[in-house]
C-alpha cells in the first residue's frame, strides 16, 4: 500500500511558473481523506499558493503531527522533504528544523486536537519563539481520525453526531495567539479558496510565526445540523473583516497602490500585503483591538475571517538569537570546531 502517485498527465500547453514547474509538481500523493473533507481544499490552496509563489519544492520542509490534518503534507509538494511526527509535537520538530535550516520555507500543518489539546503547550511556545514558519491549523472542532470526539475548539452548545452537546468553553486559537504576541494571525475557511490564497502567500512571506486558523469541516463527523463547524454554519456566518491581496516581490513596482484608503504592509521579503477593505472597526496592526473585536463578533455568532493581525517589524527566532545568516547546517566544520590548540589552551584553565 505505498502512496498512490497521481499519474502525471503531460499537456503541451500546461502552465509553468517562474521556476519552470507546473501546478502538478506541487501536488503529492492522492488524498485518502473522506470525499469532501475540508482538509483537501486546504491542500489545494496550499498547492496553488506554492505554485504561484514559485517555491522550489526542495527548498521547503513540510511537517505535521497526527490526525487527518496531519496527512495534508503527504498530499502536496512531493519533492519537498516531509516529516509526519508524533501527535501534537510538530511545533518542536519545526523549531528544530528551522534552527538548522533557516533558509528553507518551513510549513507546518496541524489539527485542532493536535494543536489545542495534546500540543497546546508546544503551539503556544512556538508562537512565543516566533519561529519563522507557516502554521496552518485545520480546524474542524473534532478529532477526525479517532472518529469524532469533541476537540478543544468545539463551541459550547455544538452538537456531536451522536447528539451529545459540548458544555466546555472552547479554546480559541485566535484569542490565544493574540494574547501570546503572535506576529501574524489569519483566519480563513477551507471552502473559500480565493480567500485562502493571499493569506497563505502572505504567511509564507512573513518573517516569523504566521498562524492561519482555517475552518475546515469534517464531513464525516462534524458537518451535521447543530455543529458549529459545518460547511453550512460557516458559510452562513462568514464575516470577512480583513481580506487581503498579496503582491509578490517581483510585481511590487508595478503594483497598483493608488487606493490610498487601504493599509499596505511591506513584507520582509519585499512583497506587499494590501488590506482590501478594513472597516473603521478593524485595525490589523492593533492586536488588542483585533482581540476585542474578534471576540465580540464571534460571540455574536459570526465566523470572523481575514488577516486579523500583522506585525512585520519583529525579529524571528534567529533574529532574536543573533544566528549567522548561513544556515547552521552549512557552516563549515572548521568554523565550528575550535581545534587542538584552543583545546590545549583551555586545558590550562582546568588546573
Amino acid at each position, binding site marked *: 500500500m505505498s502512496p498512490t502517485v497521481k499519474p502525471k498527465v503531460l499537456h503541451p500547453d500546461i502552465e509553468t511558473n517562474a521556476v519552470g514547474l507546473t501546478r502538478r509538481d506541487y501536488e503529492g500523493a492522492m488524498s485518502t481523506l473522506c470525499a469532501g473533507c475540508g482538509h483537501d481544499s486546504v491542500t489545494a490552496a496550499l498547492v496553488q499558493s506554492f505554485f504561484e509563489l514559485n517555491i522550489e519544492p526542495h527548498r521547503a520542509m513540510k511537517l505535521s503531527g497526527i490526525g487527518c490534518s496531519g496527512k495534508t503534507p503527504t498530499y502536496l509538494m512531493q519533492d519537498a522533504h516531509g516529516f509526519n511526527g508524533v501527535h501534537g509535537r510538530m511545533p518542536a520538530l519545526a523549531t*528544530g528544523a528551522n534552527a538548522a535550516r533557516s533558509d528553507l520555507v518551513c510549513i507546518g500543518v496541524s489539527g485542532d486536537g493536535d494543536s489545542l489539546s495534546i500540543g497546546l503547550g508546544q503551539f503556544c511556545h512556538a508562537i512565543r519563539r516566533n519561529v519563522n514558519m507557516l502554521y496552518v491549523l485545520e480546524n474542524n472542532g473534532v478529532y477526525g481520525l479517532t472518529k469524532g470526539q469533541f476537540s478543544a475548539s468545539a463551541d459550547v452548545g455544538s452538537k456531536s453526531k451522536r447528539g451529545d452537546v459540548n458544555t466546555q468553553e472552547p479554546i480559541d486559537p485566535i484569542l490565544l495567539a493574540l494574547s501570546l504576541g503572535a506576529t501574524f494571525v489569519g483566519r480563513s475557511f477551507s471552502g473559500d479558496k480565493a480567500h485562502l490564497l493571499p493569506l497563505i502567500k502572505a504567511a509564507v512571506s512573513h518573517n516569523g510565526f504566521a498562524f492561519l486558523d482555517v475552518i475546515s469541516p469534517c464531513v464525516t463527523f462534524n458537518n451535521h445540523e447543530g455543529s458549529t463547524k459545518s460547511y453550512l454554519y460557516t458559510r452562513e456566518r462568514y464575516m470577512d473583516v480583513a481580506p487581503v491581496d498579496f503582491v509578490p516581490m517581483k510585481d511590487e513596482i508595478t503594483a497598483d497602490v493608488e487606493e490610498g484608503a487601504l493599509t499596505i504592509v511591506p513584507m520582509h521579503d519585499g512583497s506587499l500585503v494590501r488590506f482590501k477593505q478594513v472597516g473603521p472597526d478593524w485595525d490589523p496592526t492593533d492586536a488588542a483591538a483585533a482581540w476585542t473585536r474578534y471576540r465580540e463578533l464571534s460571540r455574536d455568532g459570526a465566523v470572523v475571517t481575514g488577516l486579523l493581525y500583522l506585525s512585520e517589524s519583529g525579529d524571528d527566532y534567529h533574529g532574536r538569537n543573533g544566528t549567522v545568516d548561513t544556515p547552521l547546517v552549512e557552516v563549515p566544520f572548521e568554523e565550528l570546531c575550535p581545534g587542538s590548540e584552543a583545546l590545549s589552551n583551555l586545558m590550562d584553565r582546568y588546573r
Partner: protein
Amino acid sequence: MSQINDFAFKIGTVNGTGSSSANSLIMQAIFRMGIPVSGKNVFPSNIQGLPTWYEIRVSGAGHTARTPIFDLIVAMNRATIEKDIAEVRSGGWILYDNSWPLEDELLRADVGFLGVPFGRLGVENFKAVRERVLMKNISYAGAIAALLDMDTEVIQQMIREKFSRKPALIDSNYLAIKLGYDYAQEHFDCPLPIRLETLDKTGDQILIDGNTAAALGCVYAGATVGAWYPITPSTSLMDAFTAFCGRYRTDPETGDKRYAIVQAEDELAAAGVVIGAGWAGARAFTPTSGPGISLMSEFIGLAYYAEIPSVFFNVQRTGPSTGMPTRTQQGDIMLSAYASHGDTKHIVLFPADPRECFEMAVKAFDLAERYQTPVFVVSDLDIGMNDWMCRRFEWDDDYRPDRGKVLTAEELESIDRYFRYVDVDGDGIAARTLPGVHPKGAYFARGSGHNRLGGYTEDSDEYLEVVNRLRAKVDGAADRVAAPVVETREGATMGLITLGGCDAAAREAVELLAARGIVLDYLRVRGFPFHSAVATFLAEHEQCFVLEQNRDGQLRSLLILEAAADPETVHSIRYYGGFPMSAAHVIDGVMTQRFKQGLEPVGPEGSLVEEGA
C-alpha cells in the same frame, strides 16, 4: 599508620553561604601540589540554608573513588554537627567553630577536637554581615591548610587568579586564610598525622566535571543545535555549552552565533527540537536526566523508527520519579537500552569520567549519524557535577564528523530515483538525504508504518522488512559503539564487570582484593549494544560479579539478555543509596557474594551493600 597523602576529610556547611569556593580552593590547591585528589559535593535539592557537605579524598596512589571513611570532618554547620561528630573515624579529628561551646554530650573520647573561633574571628575582622559569613568559610580553608600542611603559596596564587578582576577581594581573602591558618598553627600541633606532601602526579591532569567535558565534546563535534529544559544534574552541561559557544562560536566580526540553543518549554519539546534539527541535517543534542527521558520516550521511539540522528545526554540522578535530584545513581540503564513502546533498541555510551564524557560526546554524534538513530550518553550526577581528576583532553585536528550515509546533490543528481529505506549495502543502513539539497532527495519521514521505499504502509511484509532491518542495524553497531576496558590478572578465574562511574571504586577494590588473594579480572562496559568482547569475557570466566548503582541489577539484566551471560554465574553487587560507589562497597559485595556462592567461610560483617529483596 602514617597517612601522608592518603586520607579523606569532609566539610559540612550550609548551602548558599559561599562554602563551595572555599572547598574547591582546597581541592585545587592539593591538586596543584601534584597530589591526586577527588572531591564529592553532597548538596541538597534546595537553594539556600540547608546542610551541604564536600568530601575530599587525597590519594598519593591515585585512587579517586569516594571513600565513606573520614579522617577529618570540618563541622561548620551547627545543624549537623552531631551527625558529623558521630561519623568521623575513631582516632580522627573534628575541626569546628568554637565561638560557642560544644555541648558535652557531643564529645567523643576517641576523636581529637580542634576548635577554631571562626565566627569570632570573622566578627572581629570583617564588617558586613554577608562578608563575615563568606570569610568564615574561607578561614576554615586556612585552618585546613595549616593542619594538612598545604602549600600556602599555591593558595595565595589561586586567590590572585580567582580575583584577578576584583582585586579588592584579594586582600580580604588573604586575611581570612591567614586568620584560620595562624590560629591553627598557634593552637594545634600542625600538621596532623594526616597530611600532604608535594608530589608530581598531576602534571598531565586536569580537574573538570563531566558536564563541562561533555559540553566541550559537543562543541568539538560540531553540534550546532542544543535544546534543553533545565533539570538537575544536567543543567550545567548546557550552561557550559553556552559559555563555550560564546567563546568559540561567535563570529568575531559580526558577533553572530554559529549555534542555536533552544531553552524549550519541557523535555518533550527539547527532544522534538533535536529530532527536527537532526532530520534537517544539524548535529543536535539535549542534556537531561531520568524524568526527562521518561517524558521524551514517545519522541525517542519516533527517532528510532524514522531513523533520525539525535543525541541524548542522560545525567542520571536517584530515582524513581523525582527521587533525590541531588544524589547519584545508575538507575536508567534498562530504560536507555529500550526506551519507548514497541520493539526498540538504542545505542548507549557509558562514560566513566569527564575525559570519557568529552570523547564519547564526540563519538555519540558520529554514531548517531552513522546509524541514523538516537544515541544516549549516560553519565550520572557524580560524573557530571563533581570535579574529577583526569588526563588533559586531546584533539586530533584531522577529525572530521562521520556523517554516515548522506547523499550529496551530485549523488542524487546521478541516480535515477531515491528511496529512503533501501538497504543497498546490506549493513542495515540506508542512505539518507537532507532537506534543501536536491529535488530528487525528497522523502517523507514518519513514525507510522512505512516500507523500504519510504511510503506509508499497513502491509505486514513491508512493515516487517523495515523493523527487521532496524534490529540488524542496531545490533550491527555492537562492535563499533565502544569496546570495553579489560584488565586481566594472572590466575584470575573470576571477573568483575561494571560500568560508568563505578570504575575508580572497582579498580581500587580489585587491587585490594588481589592483596587479599582474591584475584579478579576486570571489565568495564562502555557501550550498548554490547561489544563482542563482553560476551567473550563472560564466557571465559567461571563467575562474574556485576557491580552497579541501582536496586534491580539493571546492567546484570542487560548482560543476561544481550551478552549471553549465564544468570547462574553472574552475581549482582549493588549500592544505590545516592552516594558514589566506594571500594569498600565493592569488596563487601564481592565477599558477600563469595560467601553466598560458598567460596568464603564467613560473610563480611555489617554489610554495606543494600540487598534488594
